[in-house]
């Protein structure tokens, strides 16, 4: 807990940097006198935008996120192992090889089925 106090202070100051810049800009920046209606239109190469950008996106992203989470969980379990492999000896390595090999099976399956393919 004690060791997190400097982190807290640091994060507070780091967060304030962006707001400070925005605040300075608020003081110094100009304001348009008459705003043409097109000014706040979304930029789309000079054309009027066709449709909204907030549409249903491709499910491919979802699959990648799904696979990512599973591998992320695996990574999370690798961290305590990495910390202790020096202390625990050969047994830990064998365990982890089994763990990783089983997961690599899933990886091979995902690769073969094209789940990690982008198009």
């Amino acid at each position, binding site marked *: 807990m004690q060791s997190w106090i400097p982190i807290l202070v640091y994060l507070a100051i780091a967060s304030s940097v962006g707001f400070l810049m925005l605040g300075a800009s608020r003081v110094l920046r100009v304001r348009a006198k008459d705003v043409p209606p097109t000014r706040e239109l979304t930029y789309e190469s000079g054309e009027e935008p*066709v449709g909204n950008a907030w549409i249903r996106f491709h*499910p*491919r992203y979802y699959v990648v996120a799904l696979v990512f989470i599973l591998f992320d969980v695996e990574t999370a379990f690798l961290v305590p192992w990495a910390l202790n492999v020096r202390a625990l000896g050969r047994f830990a390595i064998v365990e982890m090889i089994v763990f990783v090999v089983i997961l690599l099976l899933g990886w091979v399956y995902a690769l073969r089925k094209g789940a990690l393919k982008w198009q």
Partner: protein
Amino acid sequence: MALIPTKAFVADPYLDLETYQADADLMTLSLGPQHPSTHGVFRVVLHMDGEMIVKAVPHAGYLHRGVEKLCEKLSYSNITPILDKNDYVSPMINEQAANMAFEKIMNIEVPLRAKYLRTVLAEMQRIASHLLWLGTFAIDLGGAMGGGTTVFMYCFRERELILDLFEALTGCRFHYNTHCVGGNRHDVPPGWSQGVHQALDLIEARLAEYLGMFDHPIFVDRTRGVGTLDAELALELGVTGPLLRASGVDHDLRRDAPYHVYDLVDLKVAVASGGDCLARYQVRVEEMKESARIVRLLIDNLPAGPLSSTKPLNMVTQFKATAGQVYVGVETPRGELGTWLIADGKKATSPYRMKIRPPSLHNAAVIPYVLPGHTLSDAIAILGSLDPIMGEVDR
């Protein structure tokens, strides 16, 4: 809902978006008219399923300047500067095309020295044009804030060498107006041929350097198999130039219907198979090397004699044509530039109709066929590899 698409997508330029079964909402993205990679004011409306393009509709006409109509109102000697601005990346060759048509309809013979000089200028212009293409293509692939810009800067540095030579010859960097009916206006200044040799030495040496940059797995991955255009479709759409040669069709007007002195130089036409962006790149690079060879060959052997068979005066009534029509095709860096000239005897000093067949327009016609099925990144690469010049697409 198919989370993982497994079926092959069949590109169909006539796709009905109403009946298309998309995996996601179709996003209609307007690429252009102001976009960093449309190479001018061109608009391609992309209908995208996720990141895959299912339909691409090109919209042209943002630079329609009524050039053909303007030509009907101008005298023959005044048309040349207008056509400079038509394909603004290779103005020399555009001037030549128009003046060749005028000479043909008026039966004016061009002196040999002018023919040699025209060939030299055309080939130097081809190098400059391809250098510009290489730079912008690299920007398309590598971004304005990355390695692409580096290549772009290098290419422009070399292009400036050629523009300097043109400036020494004609006094202009860009729109030269150096060709006239019956020959050329400006004769070679002293020491010019040495300058050409020096510039070509530099360009050839440095070109080898950049090609090392392009001989990189990232470049090959980005271009191989991207935008494949098969020869049949290319011929059907009227595609010419490096695009056609990249698709494996051995066709080059400079060799097949020689004009100027191309029949003397034993032109080796670069042909690649594959029809993808990589092949187009290879063809253009080979053309640059071949052009440099031709220029070197001719520049030392310029025959003596007059540069023009007519007096280059800008008098409106100087050149008169009787009724008739001619077609002249020349090979620009983008393909066959055709000039179809009709003269009626009544209005002798200006053409009755002048139809320009720009190569870029026909090359751009492949967009709806080639883009679908590719991602947005590939679309940019393909658009860059087509090298359309909007000035001549819209005219």
